[in-house]
């Protein structure tokens, strides 16, 4: 009898190995998305006209089904991790840019005026005022991007077993071991919830100035 | 038509004058409001905070009763208990003798107009449909409700062309007028107003206050008005309830009595520094002895300019009798009075409709120390010195002291 955590040898990884692989494939693209979206969002804030085209392009990209995206990339990047990770980075970008733009725009104009009046240059003002105040909005975007990214990695199974935990779904059918499919779904969901909780924790640590819920009436 | 006439006719507008509009309901008006009796009402929240503490008030019908006090005095809570937006922990509230809890809550609320700060208009509805809300709730047809709404727009001084607009297209003052119109739409006997004019600038606020007094003069509702502004309370209230922090009643009196006899240090402090001057608003200027000797027309002959009974200054008027300015008798030459060399005459008052406060203010503003009295058309009817005004003030005070002890309401309403 094979157990819940006995992973067929064709996957070349232990359960923990798959978890690590899954997190890497899911979160590296989110990180890349964040790094790219910060300057893009700042451009959108600086030049209002820039937001509409960016919003249009990202909306269209978001509409491309992940599977189709993967398949189209095979020609260029082959059946590799990159083929999975590039679309995920694009999806993260799509979620993060509007979140950051809204967050930075939500900084009260009088706060900005006060910062300028105290002699903060544009860079300092961005790093010390706008960005910190936008943290809750950015983290909210990161939560959506990270959780959906973790969920989407599984589909990579369809392009030459690049789906990390998703590959268990294939084996579940090949070896008639439905518990592998349960393992895949439960582990992926748990990872999503865990990462989400971690991001909430990060927000709490980064924003000690936010009123705690329940502290005031 | 010149600017002077326009200003004079503005001064003439009837009810903003508190002397005629603000007493008991004038005769011949059928009673429209109801009497609200608040009986030892307490509101205590689960966390132990007491917002209102054993409050009893008898809110007269057909008049404006103002609840005033610092923040945290429970004035808004009290107001919201009248339409059961807040339920009292103890005590009861009676509407013409009937406990408000005996009526279904929404029926009760539909019988009371409700106006709040910033108006709280529905941004997705046109102005007309905003005003028609309660009539529609009461089951009126759309056409009838809109017709009624259009009628109310006129009543609150809004142009009919605004009816098809949305709230965002109106100024703050206009929105507040819509708020009042919406509250009046179903012709409720009671109007509850929670700091309705607090969010607009002082000039607009004064306009809205005058408008409210004018509307109230026509409609005679029972109005409960909450404000933190004592000047607003004194201006609008027939009766003023001053509440202190913790929700206890400090004083309940007509504004004139409040100003003349504050119940304690808290009320006195809350009234502010110049309550003596402000109280003069309640004394009529009708009895002032006006002098006509120092008034000369611009085309006066030398003889007329000479017979001035030793007055230090003469008021020069135009051919119609409108004041132009003050001049020293020695410097005025018959037939050659130069208007631009005259001294300004300050702000004239209208004896009868303006108060002693306005008269005194006019004399203080005038460089000569004399106030100019004009009639409704802006024509000079006489002049009066600060000294005479001072005597009138003292006389009014002593009349009050002689009369029914401190019954300032009668003095305030003296016509």
């Amino acid at each position: 009898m094979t157990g819940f955590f006995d992973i067929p040898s064709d996957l070349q990884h232990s359960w923990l190995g798959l978890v690590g692989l899954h997190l890497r494939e899911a979160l590296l693209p989110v990180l890349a998305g964040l790094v790219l979206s910060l300057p893009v969002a700042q451009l959108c804030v600086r030049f209002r006209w820039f937001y509409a085209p960016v919003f249009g392009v990202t909306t269209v990209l978001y509409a491309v089904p992940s599977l189709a995206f993967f398949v189209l990339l095979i020609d260029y990047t082959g059946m590799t991790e990159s083929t999975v990770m590039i679309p995920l980075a694009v999806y993260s970008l799509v979620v993060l840019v509007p979140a950051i733009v809204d967050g930075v725009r939500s900084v009260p104009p009088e706060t900005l005026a006060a910062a300028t009046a105290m002699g903060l240059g544009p860079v300092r003002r961005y790093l010390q005022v706008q960005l910190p105040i936008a943290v809750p909005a950015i983290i909210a975007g990161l939560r959506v991007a990270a959780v959906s990214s973790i969920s989407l990695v599984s589909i990579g199974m369809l392009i030459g077993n690049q789906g990390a935990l998703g590959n268990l779904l294939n084996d579940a059918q090949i070896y008639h071991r439905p518990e592998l499919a349960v393992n895949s779904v439960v582990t992926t969901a748990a990872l999503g919830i865990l990462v989400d909780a971690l991001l909430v924790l990060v927000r709490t640590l980064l924003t000690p100035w936010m009123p705690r819920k329940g502290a005031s009436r | 038509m010149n600017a002077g006439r326009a200003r004079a006719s503005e001064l003439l507008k009837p009810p903003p004058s508190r002397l005629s509009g603000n007493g008991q309901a004038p005769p011949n008006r059928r009673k429209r409001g109801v009497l609200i009796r608040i009986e030892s009402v307490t509101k205590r929240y689960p966390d132990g905070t007491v917002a209102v503490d054993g409050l009893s008030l008898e809110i007269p019908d057909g008049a404006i009763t103002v609840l005033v006090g610092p923040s945290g005095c429970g004035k808004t809570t009290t107001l919201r208990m009248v339409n059961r937006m807040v339920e009292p922990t103890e005590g009861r509230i009676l509407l013409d003798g009937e406990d408000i809890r005996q009526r279904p809550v929404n029926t009760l609320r539909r019988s009371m107009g409700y106006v709040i700060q910033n108006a709280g208009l529905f941004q997705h509805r046109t102005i007309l449909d905003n005003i028609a809300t309660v009539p529609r709730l009461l089951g009126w047809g759309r056409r009838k409700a809109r017709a009624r709404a259009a009628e109310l727009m006129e009543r609150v001084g809004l142009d009919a062309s605004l009816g098809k607009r949305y709230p965002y297209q109106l100024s703050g003052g206009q929105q507040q007028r819509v708020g009042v119109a919406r509250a009046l739409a179903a012709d409720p006997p009671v109007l509850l107003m929670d700091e309705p004019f607090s969010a607009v600038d002082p000039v607009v606020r004064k306009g809205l206050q005058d408008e409210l007094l004018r509307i109230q003069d026509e409609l005679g509702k029972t109005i409960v008005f909450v404000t933190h502004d004592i000047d607003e309370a004194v201006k609008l209230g027939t009766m003023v309830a001053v509440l202190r922090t913790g929700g206890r009643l400090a004083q309940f009196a007509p504004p004139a009595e409040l100003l003349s006899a504050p119940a304690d240090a808290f009320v006195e402090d809350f009234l502010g520094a110049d309550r003596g001057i402000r109280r003069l608003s309640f004394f009529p200027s009708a009895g002032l002895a006006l002098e006509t000797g120092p008034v000369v027309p611009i085309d006066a002959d030398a003889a007329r300019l000479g017979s001035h009974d030793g007055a230090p200054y003469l008021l020069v008027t135009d051919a119609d009798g409108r004041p132009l300015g003050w001049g020293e008798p020695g410097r005025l030459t018959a037939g050659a009075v130069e208007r631009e060399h005259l001294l300004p005459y300050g702000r004239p008052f209208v004896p009868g409709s303006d108060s002693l406060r306005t008269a005194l203010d006019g004399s203080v503003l005038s460089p000569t120390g004399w106030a100019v009295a004009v009639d409704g058309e802006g024509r000079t009817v006489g002049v009066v010195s600060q000294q005479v005004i001072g005597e009138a003030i003292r006389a009014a005070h002593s009349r009050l002291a002689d009369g029914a002890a401190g019954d300032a309401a009668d003095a305030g309403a003296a016509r």
Partner: protein
Amino acid sequence: MTVIDFARAFFGDSAHWHGEDGIPHRVVQHLLYSAEALAIAAAIGLPVGLLTGHHRRGGNTLALVATAARALPTFGLLVLMFTWLGFGLVPVMIPLVALAVPPVLVTAYEAVRSVDPPPVDAARGMGMSETRILLQVELPVALPLVLSGLRTAAVQVVSTATIAAYVSFGGLGRYIIDGLAQKDYEKVVGGATLVVGLALATLAVFWAVARIAVSPGVRRSH
């Protein structure tokens, strides 16, 4: 060959325009079960979101439920449901509904909760019932946001419904899955193009609905 050449070849082939595997049939299939999944998600998410938003309570619980639903891997859930329940509509609907509920639920809640309080207070003071307040005061103002939640859900469902083909289901995913198996890139590109087109059409539909349904007094402030 470029993507555009593949697409041209796919759409130029008249064989792709009729029959069981023809474009019209596949598009209709795709639309039907996307619409069904969205309808179920709306039937669950809207009432719950609107009511909790109206009472301004339960936001934390709602956020937890939404996070849990978001964390469920759609594809994994599909395969699992297929393994357990076999071929059918239900195993396809469960993951798609789980995908669509969180955005509908969370935005409906946020939209109603963040409605400016004074008009609601005024409505209550005028004697409106709570149902009327929700439907006639809060919902019209919240509508742009509520629609945006539905729109996000709809686009995700249309785009994700492609994976249903993996469990032998119809729809536009057939082209992608079959094309992948047959190494027929024309099919893959054609299928992907159609899905993107459908998703954009969905956006257009929501844009039009918002134009018609949202009051001009509200539209301006968004």
